């Protein structure tokens, strides 16, 4: 019975249970420590689906006034009082436990990645997961800065860089369609005493759904002064052969 309930964890995180099952599941959750850990992660994952939705562009100003006015006359729920002693311990422990848990999570991910590699299963997913983890790190970093460039053609390039993570996420929108046998290639440009060095950051894989978009992770960005995109023969070139389609300078 409890095993049966546990399979509802995905539907629960997606709010896809009817009221009756929802209540049953929450009761089960109250007594199941291991389920709670899984639920927390899946609820967090579901929230990422929510955060990926287009934010509302025009928020009615009347809504703000209504909310603030209602709040001003609405009492807050009172927290359950926790004895001072345990509260102090918990406060002190929380960051330490948080750091330890983060470390464990990293270890768990490497172990999972290793296992997947051992099994030779779906290597793309492994690479994707690693990249995604780095992308997530960049987006979550405290020091990230976004740079943005839009050309009159509509082509739009955004670079989010974190020095802390030493990586950047480059995203392109409204890329012009490519002729057969051509690719877009990304370049790192570093300026040195003896001029500028241009090295390939790889060929852009356009999004399957919309070929006009592409996202790329650039690791090791320390010393990169600019990024550029050129059109090249399919598969890319060792050196850029044409003028950059778009180039964005990163402040040092």
């Amino acid at each position, binding site marked *: 019975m409890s095993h049966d309930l546990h399979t509802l964890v*995905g539907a629960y995180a*997606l*709010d896809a249970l009817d009221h009756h099952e929802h209540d049953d599941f929450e009761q089960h959750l109250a007594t199941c420590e291991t389920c709670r850990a899984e639920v927390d992660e899946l609820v967090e994952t579901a929230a990422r689906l929510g955060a*990926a939705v287009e934010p*509302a562009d025009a*928020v009615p100003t009347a809504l703000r006034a209504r909310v603030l006015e209602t709040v001003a006359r609405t009492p807050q729920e009172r927290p359950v009082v926790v004895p001072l002693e345990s509260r102090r311990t918990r406060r002190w422990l929380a960051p330490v436990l948080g750091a330890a848990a983060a470390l464990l999570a990293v270890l768990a991910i490497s172990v999972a990645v290793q296992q997947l590699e051992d099994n030779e299963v779906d290597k793309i997913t492994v690479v994707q997961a690693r990249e995604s983890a780095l992308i*997530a790190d960049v987006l979550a970093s405290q*020091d990230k800065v976004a740079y943005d460039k839009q050309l009159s053609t509509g082509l739009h390039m955004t670079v989010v860089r974190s020095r802390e993570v030493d990586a950047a996420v480059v995203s392109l929108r409204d890329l012009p369609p490519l002729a057969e046998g051509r690719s877009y290639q990304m370049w790192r440009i570093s300026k040195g005493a003896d001029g500028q060095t241009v090295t390939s950051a790889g060929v852009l894989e356009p999004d399957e759904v919309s070929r006009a978009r592409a996202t790329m992770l650039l690791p090791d960005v320390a010393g990169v002064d600019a990024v550029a995109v050129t059109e090249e023969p399919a598969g890319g070139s060792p050196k850029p052969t044409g003028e950059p389609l778009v180039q964005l300078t990163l402040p040092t």
Partner: protein
Amino acid sequence: MALASVPSPDDSSGNPAATDRVDLSDLLVRTARGDERAFAGLYDGIVSLVLGLARRVVRDPSRAEEVAQEVFIQVWQTAHRFDPAKGSAKTWILTLTHRRAVDVVRRDQSATNREARYDWSGGPAYDTVDEQVSARLEYEQVRRCLRSLTELQREAVQLAYYRGYTYAEVASLLKANPATVKTRMRDGLIRLRDCLGVSVA
């Protein structure tokens, strides 16, 4: 990182700009102590996401606005339940928003007049830059990861999350066994979790 000050609504122009300058979790913790100014800052920092998600799920703009209003009142009333050690304020608030939106859509509509398919092809059309950069990249990353799911996993997850269907409704829409849909939702979310690198401290 600079501690959150209450942002003015037009505090989002300028380029380059740091994104997420406001620490929403800090504002939510202060809200729990009855700080109305912090609450206003929290509102300004997340209202476009809350309303965006409500609109995506309930479709009707005025109903979505009601959902957003109810969510913010609920945030104010129950802010003390938020535990910053367990997750971000954004997750907490979006989870409340989704639950509320799903309740409304189930009350308002019968399953038959909701669309069966969710179309990702267009993608969000963002018109301002830095404040929405995070959201756009988030979107692109989520979409990329959704592609690593099997078709049934992906359809089940999307129909449930973005349309508010129960797993039983999803099963009948996809002409699949409810028990299968239930496990595909779990497997799909687990795969998504791993691809997105989600972990909860």
